């Protein structure tokens, strides 16, 4: 079926110039001779951690290299003709017509000053594929197919007037509008909340099926790609690890690396017995200055010493605000926070040195949580100086102890954050928190910016440290797999309220309230056909109601 072969990439080599800090620029090879074949109407999932080259390979299907990336070797044949060496005029004809692209961040990709309809049909018009009226009819049809509200009038809105999930679907409509042969989906649901992700995923899957378009689906989440792809290619360090039918990859992976990816997020943590709380939050209500509504409404939760309370919810649920209230960055308007037997001052300025020392924080983005101009030694050593007055050799020794504790070993103290990998950065942040010898560490989405395998490593490290140092974690997350892996108690938050709260085994067992049920059932499972089951189940339930 040679004529069915849409995309045929052979021996693809991609190079780029890298600029390591403090060193001369050097040439690096991102992709080492990868082959990709895609039949018409099929969906190929490209999966791997960051730096695997999945986006770079995906974009090469339209002969595009992002920011200084060069396609230096191999052949890329699309619809039977070579495009790697094609000139700009030929590429212009092909991009947006035969191949289209859906990016991760729809919010950053739409022009905020133009209405959605104009942007959705723009490429279709500029390629002269249809007249304006015809293109608009097609766009409305796509809006309907993608389940957007009020498809006839949806295009009249501006990007800021619709939600993130709707915007991502509008972008999918944009990509499908010119009737392309191939669509490249680059992490289209990664930036979305888990309850939104499932709808977008279902919409994308249905649209792909109905339009018979071929697709490259790029993601780091194997459970997501298992729902949409016919075949999956596992990539690592710019090389192909394994290629196979989705069923085979999920159920019978051949390579060790693939097995590790499949078994990721299966950590289970046995909850500890209830104990007296180290942190007690009673009826806390808070709002940001200049706004007219409470972001936290009468929140009451306890956290036992040496245990973990997971605060779960989607974006805007108030979980990070709760952390700000505990740390004193946002003084609550009502309520009381008791820590280690003493009532905490609502405001940061009213807290004692011990209050500050005993509550530490780890952030989601380790990149911005460390001063790029300070070495790891300074970053970890500063709390030692400030709280314990350690200096010189004593301080350096303790810093090294802490680095050993986070499994980083020698030679890291002199490095700058830019010279560390994502996982190492987060470990340094953990070491900085530990340096203060705290009773409570607030972990704000600490694993959500990391690759699954690295995130697993961080979670294991946190569990070990908890056992050693008897520190309590307030663990803020939107990911229920993480919750299973680490929590003793769970508080489910929605719109500033605690919807459900209790021991992990109680919260994660029926009967659920509606929101907890929605949240729990939205987490993608490593199972082919999971998406259809959930959607069918929800349809039945709503029909029943």
């Amino acid at each position, binding site marked *: 079926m040679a004529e069915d072969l849409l995309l045929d990439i052979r021996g693809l080599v991609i190079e780029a*110039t890298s*600029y390591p800090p403090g060193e*001369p*620029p050097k040439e690096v090879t991102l992709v080492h001779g990868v082959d990709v074949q895609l039949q018409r109407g099929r969906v190929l999932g490209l999966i791997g951690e960051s730096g695997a080259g999945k986006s770079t390979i995906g974009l090469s299907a339209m002969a595009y290299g992002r*920011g*200084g990336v060069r396609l230096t070797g191999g052949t890329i044949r699309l619809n039977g003709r070579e495009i790697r060496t094609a000139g700009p005029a030929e590429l212009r004809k092909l991009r947006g017509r035969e191949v289209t692209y859906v990016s991760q961040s729809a919010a950053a990709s739409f022009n905020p000053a133009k209405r959605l309809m104009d942007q959705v049909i723009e490429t279709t018009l500029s390629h002269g594929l249809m007249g304006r009226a015809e293109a608009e009819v097609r766009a409305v049809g796509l809006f309907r197919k993608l389940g957007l509200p009020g498809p006839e009038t949806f295009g009249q809105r501006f990007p800021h007037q619709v939600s993130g999930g709707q915007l991502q679907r509008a972008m999918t409509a944009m990509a499908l509008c010119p009737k392309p042969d191939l669509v490249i989906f680059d992490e289209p649901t990664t930036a979305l909340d888990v309850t939104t992700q499932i709808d977008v995923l279902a919409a994308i899957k249905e649209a792909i099926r109905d339009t018979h378009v071929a697709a490259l689906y790029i993601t780091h989440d194997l459970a997501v790609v298992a729902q949409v792809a016919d075949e999956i290619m596992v990539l690592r360090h710019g090389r192909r690890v394994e290629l196979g039918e989705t069923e085979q990859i999920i159920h019978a992976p051949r390579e060790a690396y693939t097995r590790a990816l499949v078994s990721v997020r299966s950590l289970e943590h046995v909850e500890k017995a209830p104990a007296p709380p180290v942190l007690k939050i009673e009826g806390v209500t808070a709002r940001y200055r200049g706004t007219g509504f409470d972001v936290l409404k009468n929140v009451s939760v306890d956290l036992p010493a040496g245990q973990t309370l997971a605060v779960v919810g989607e974006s805007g649920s108030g979980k990070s605000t709760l952390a700000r209230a505990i*740390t*004193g*960055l946002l003084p609550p308007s009502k309520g009381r926070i008791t820590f280690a037997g003493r009532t905490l001052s609502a405001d*940061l300025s009213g*807290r004692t*040195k011990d209050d*500050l*020392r005993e*509550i530490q*924080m780890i*952030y989601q*983005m380790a990149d*911005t*949580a*460390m*001063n*790029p*101009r*300070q070495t790891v030694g300074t970053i970890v050593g*500063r*709390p030692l100086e*400030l709280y314990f007055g350690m200096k010189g050799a004593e301080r350096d020794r303790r810093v090294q102890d802490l680095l050993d504790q986070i499994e980083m070993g020698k030679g890291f103290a002199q490095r700058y954050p830019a010279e560390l990998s994502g996982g190492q950065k987060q470990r340094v942040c953990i070491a*900085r928190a530990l340096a*203060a010898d705290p009773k409570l560490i607030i972990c704000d989405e600490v694993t959500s910016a990391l690759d699954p395998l690295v995130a697993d490593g961080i979670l294991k490290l946190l569990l070990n440290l908890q056992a050693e140092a008897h520190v309590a974690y307030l663990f803020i997350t939107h990911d229920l797999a993480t919750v299973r892996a680490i929590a003793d108690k769970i508080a489910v938050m929605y719109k500033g309220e605690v919807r459900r709260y209790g021991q992990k085994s109680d919260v994660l067992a029926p009967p659920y309230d509606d929101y907890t049920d929605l949240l729990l059932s939205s987490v993608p499972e490593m199972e082919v056909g999971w998406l259809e089951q959930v959607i069918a189940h929800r349809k039945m339930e709503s029909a029943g109601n």
Partner: protein
Amino acid sequence: MRIPASALLGLALTGLFLFTAIFAQWIAPYPIDAAVGGVWEGPSATFWLGTDTIGRDILSRLIYGGQITIFVALASSLLSFGLGSFFGFLAAVRGGWTDQILSRIVDLMMAIPSLIVALVMLSVLPLNLTVLILVMGVLDSTRVFRLARAVAMDIAVMDYVEAAKLRGEKQGWVIFREILPNALSPLVAEFGMRFIFAVLFISTLSFLGLGIQPPLTDWGGMVKENKDGLIYGKGAALMPAAAIALLAISVNLVADWVLTRTSSLKGGRGG
């Protein structure tokens, strides 16, 4: 690290200007105020750039004048940077009323053209180098304040600054250890720009007669002394004017390079 040709040229010329300014006493062929030739002689082997309105060697006066021009400009830019960045950082870190009061004072100062304020102040105050530097430095610090505040605002919302506050660090640590090192690159690039404006400003003031007073001289003053020669086709006034332009361009080339280097660092991709 490769330095582009334009930046190399800028560095070389700026270096030359600084060198001649520092060692003026040894380099200048004639004293600053001795009439050694005829009036408005053209360039020759004896007087490389010709002579001025009363027969003084223009090259020597350019070298001595450069010393004063560069010294005053440098001193006032340093002053404006000290003031501007300190208050700019303070406004960004403290926010609230501190920010409001400082920012409105700066708005007020910027609402009046700085040349007019300078002219008024210099006509009232005694005319000497210290007063000149103070007036220029304070007036220019408003621009630096704006930049420093904007840069520090971006840095102040970073998690590592929040982490420092949560750790219980004092304001001094937050400003000097967390914010300053990260704000330095854009400020250094801006320093080149402000220095050039200071050169132009002192030249303007001297041209108007309110800057450097005789027997000292600077480039702006030299343009003023020789401007009448232009009517008779004597190019003496063009020499200091060209020196001002050349200094401005060479410092700009360096500042440009610093700016692109730092912004490419921020983008993380270089190139």
